[in-house]
């Protein structure tokens, strides 16, 4: 049966049984206001022109697709291509979305933006656009992540943002998101909440996806131009899942293109110390949407583990939950150890240092390529650069600066 992927979510933000708007009454009006603003501007030529100009001249798009020949040879199978989101201004795909939402904030007359961040990439991207548009900016970040990602914390401060360490709960991304929601409820009149991933209450999963879909739209044209055909497979890492949805979405109707979303298996799925709700969780309600979650038998959210702060999240965007259930996308997982090995391998073979998040996609793509013929093409989303992770990698090797 043909599925029309373009019509989802429905008018209430549902992707099948997932998504929706599970928030306190105190946030309903703010979300309705945001939805109305987005419906008004999403097809507005002026808005789209401004977005396109920023993407081209500020972010540096289109990001290239690179045929990693040496890495392909070493992997012993399919040809591996990288969509170079690491080359964007600020070093990751996150900026595509923060620019889109900041332009929306400006049109809605908001003077202050807030964000949650895990690895710090979304925080940096938010602080960057806030600096440029002259908006006040506060970023919530779990205390544990502040420690792990001190370089990005300092970058945000340099950009004029205030980083607020969050000490509640597990002190990571999920708690930062709780705290940002609390701020938004309190300051909703002048504040726009820039959510960094395709999760949260409707309309966030839809609007973040729409802004990030520029990745897949470009990649589709680039692959056709470079190779004369669509890729056989797409691979992207999945935490909340914004870079993966951004790559996958424009390819969803292309039945010949297989898709792999790579979750963080941490110490291994069997150890329970991981961040792979699609691989080992079950559906529930958190952060405004129904989706696969890491939860216990009492419905309490359990702590996650991943070497990469950006994947260390117990939920996932609701569209991914739906794509899992429909079988359109395969969700797999990669351990900390495998991701770290892939980080080193890509760095040494191609002179490209991937973020630890993206290293999960790199690791799975190598495995996949090995099982495919040499003329098959695998396109991997290199969602961010690894500079921010140098301290983490060095510490694991016992090096202190």
């Amino acid at each position: 049966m043909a599925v029309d992927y373009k019509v989802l979510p429905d008018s209430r933000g549902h992707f099948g049984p997932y998504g929706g708007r599970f928030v306190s009454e105190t946030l309903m009006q703010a979300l309705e206001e945001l939805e109305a603003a987005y419906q008004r501007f999403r097809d507005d030529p002026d808005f789209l022109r401004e977005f396109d100009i920023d993407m081209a001249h500020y972010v540096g798009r289109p990001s290239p697709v690179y045929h990693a020949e040496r890495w392909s040879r070493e992997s012993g199978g399919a040809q591996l291509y990288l969509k170079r989101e690491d080359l964007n201004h600020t070093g990751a795909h996150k900026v595509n979305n923060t620019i889109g939402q900041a332009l929306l904030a400006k049109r809605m007359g908001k003077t202050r933006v807030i964000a949650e961040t895990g690895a710090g990439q979304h925080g940096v991207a938010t602080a960057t656009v806030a600096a440029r548009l002259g908006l006040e900016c506060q970023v919530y970040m779990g205390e544990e992540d502040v420690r792990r990602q001190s370089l990005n914390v300092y970058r945000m401060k340099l950009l004029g943002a205030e980083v607020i360490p969050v000490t509640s709960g597990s002190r990571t991304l999920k708690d930062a998101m709780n705290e940002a929601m609390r701020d938004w409820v309190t300051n909703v009149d002048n504040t726009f909440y820039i959510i960094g991933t395709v999760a949260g209450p409707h309309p966030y999963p839809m609007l973040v996806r729409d802004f990030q879909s520029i990745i897949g739209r470009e990649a589709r044209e680039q692959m056709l131009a470079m190779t004369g055909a669509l890729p056989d497979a797409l691979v992207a890492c999945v935490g909340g899942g914004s870079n993966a949805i951004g790559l996958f979405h424009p390819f969803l109707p292309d039945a010949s293109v297989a898709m792999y979303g790579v979750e963080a298996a941490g110490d291994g799925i069997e150890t329970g110390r991981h961040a792979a709700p699609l691989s080992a969780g079950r559906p529930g309600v958190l952060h405004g949407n129904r989706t696969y979650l890491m939860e216990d038998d009492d419905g309490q959210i359990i702590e996650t583990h991943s070497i990469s702060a950006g994947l260390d999240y117990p939920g996932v965007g609701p569209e991914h939950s739906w794509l899992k259930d429909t079988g359109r996308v395969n969700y797999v997982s990669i351990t900390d150890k495998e991701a770290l090995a892939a980080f080193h391998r890509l760095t040494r073979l191609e002179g490209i240092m991937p973020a630890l998040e993206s290293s999960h996609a790199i690791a799975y793509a190598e495995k996949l390529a090995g099982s495919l013929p040499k003329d098959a093409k695998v396109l991997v989303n290199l969602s961010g650069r690894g500079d921010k992770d140098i301290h983490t990698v060095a510490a694991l090797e016992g090096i202190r600066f």
Partner: protein
Amino acid sequence: MNRLNQRMQALKASGRKALVPYLVCGDPCADATVPAMHALVKAGADVIELGVPFSDPMAEGPVIQRAHERALAQKTTLRGTLEAVRRFREADKETPIVLMGYANPVEVMGYAAFAKAAATAGVDGLLTVDMPLEEGGDLNAALKAEGIEPIFLVAPTTSPERLARICAVAGGYLYYVSLKGVTGAAHLQVDSVKEALSRIRKLTDKPVCVGFGIKDAASASAVGALADGVVVGSALVDRLGAIAIGANAKTEAESTSCDVLSPIRAALDALVTRA
């Protein structure tokens, strides 16, 4: 008729203001909750809102967040909360109990199974903070089938059109959130509560209890003069949370509950006498 609706009607008939204390089940320890609930009733509580501990209480300020953390550290979750209600009911079959919590624990138990277990334990109402009307159809049907009333928040930003839809489903009372923000935030603006209540009264004759920002006799008196009742949350939770876990926790929870609630009860009753 449901115990909660009955109680709200009786209060209205007698002109008495509803005093609704909120505490988190299992805070500061599991065996303090039921004694505290009985003490609250003795001190004049008309309805008890019992918080169901959740790992991610998104709408709460720091005071109630920490209460959820303490209760979870004591391993109290939804099942433990239902068990506390069951034990409370052994001695009190009159005081209505409203559970207040987040959607996920109920999702995991299953709506029908939850509603049945809650009704058996003696629960009268459920306020699911992150389950707005639009998402709550199946849950609310399951609750109604077991005689449990769905309770809804109404915010300063709730439009008349939404309020009408909420009133069509809501049981018990409307819980008017007097502030923008999380629980326990800043202080009350009585004028804006007054203005909002007169708007709400034009649309419904359901009883309205006001929460968020009511912390003592003075604020309760100011709001009580306008509303059908007041919810006292953070002010009570703050005091309960300061109790050290140990042999004395039960008696301290009892005396603390009485200390916090008695002056507020007196202030609310003075309103009636004056009228």
